[in-house]
């Protein structure tokens, strides 16, 4: 099974080419494509002026017509045994090959003070870093399903957890490590650790947790679009290069052809 995470132009294009080569392929999406934010698209081949969200839905429809399963879920971790286990909010999925088409990396804005304290109290991964905050004061930031999952995990580590939203926070404050959060209502909350989850898991965070190498331009790939992990590929806005639909579609096709020619 080949699993594509992401149903934007890159993921859909990749799925189309794989399916036409008779590969067993599925697509998982949490419907957070950049396209859904674009009012109109006016520079893509053959569509004329089209609403971004409409083009996104057309893409999904076109692969569903080829009987490619499109699963609504959010992948929050990738683990490895003999094959990959994609851990979703709703389900886990096994896969031999994974294509990451998650869209742009570093797409979120830092909370004031956040960047300064990364690794000094700020964490993006409860399973990686929860250990360091046993019985300490913890804040979980974000109120989506992903934040709920991280909270459930951290509950086993400390009973002293507060839940906040990104919007509640004015600034994260500390010395050589985080000491408290200054809220918009001008009160302070003392904390030792802050786990940032946002509304949905950020592409960068999924890569970080899963051990996929990134830099400021995106996921690091080799000449075959493969990441630092064998059999995990990447394409579209997630990798360095022009952030446009045509390029994402091209990337998706290239990755499909590489996978097809390798097996």
């Amino acid at each position, binding site marked *: 099974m080949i699993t594509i995470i992401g149903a934007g132009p890159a993921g859909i294009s990749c799925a189309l080419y794989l399916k036409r080569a008779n590969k067993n392929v599925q697509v998982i999406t949490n419907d957070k494509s950049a396209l859904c934010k674009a009012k109109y698209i006016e520079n893509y081949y053959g569509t004329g002026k089209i609403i971004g969200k409409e083009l996104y839905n057309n893409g999904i429809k076109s692969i569903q017509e080829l009987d490619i399963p499109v699963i609504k879920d959010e992948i929050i971790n990738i683990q490895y045994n003999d094959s990959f286990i994609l851990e979703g909010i709703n389900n886990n999925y096994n896969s031999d090959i994974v294509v990451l088409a998650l869209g742009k990396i570093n797409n979120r804005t830092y909370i004031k003070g956040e960047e300064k304290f990364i690794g*000094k109290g700020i964490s993006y991964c409860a399973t990686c870093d929860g250990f360091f905050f046993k019985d300490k004061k913890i804040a979980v930031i974000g109120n989506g399903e992903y934040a709920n999952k991280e909270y459930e995990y951290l509950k086993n580590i400390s009973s002293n957890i507060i839940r906040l939203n990104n919007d509640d926070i004015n600034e994260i404050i500390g010395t050589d490590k985080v000491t408290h959060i200054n809220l918009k209502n001008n009160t302070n909350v003392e904390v030792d650790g802050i786990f940032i989850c946002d509304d949905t898991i950020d592409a960068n965070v999924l890569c970080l947790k899963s*051990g996929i190498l990134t830099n400021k331009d995106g996921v690091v790939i080799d000449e075959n679009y493969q990441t630092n992990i064998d059999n995990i590929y990447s394409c579209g806005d997630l990798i360095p290069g022009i952030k446009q639909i045509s390029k994402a579609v091209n990337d998706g096709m290239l990755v499909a052809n590489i996978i097809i020619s390798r097996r």
Partner: protein
Amino acid sequence: MAIINGNKNNFKELINNKVIVDFYADWCGPCKMLSPVLDKISEEENIDIVKINVDNDPELAKEYGIMSIPTIIVFENGEEKNKNIGLCSKQDIKDMIK
């Protein structure tokens, strides 16, 4: 050079040489990805890698302010020279030990 299993008893002695210390744990996914990169470094470069399992030596992790893993620290003459939190490339590590 070599991969050495460090602990709180031999740590101070080990970091008197120029070494890369890898703070890791078995349950940490990105640590597993960094490990083969460090193995390569130990083959290609003239430097030892000291592995600290934070499960076994939480005191050491605390002493060096580790709150996120993987973290690697380059030590020389007992002093912290360079630090990286999270997964990084072989080239990043080579730059850290220059």
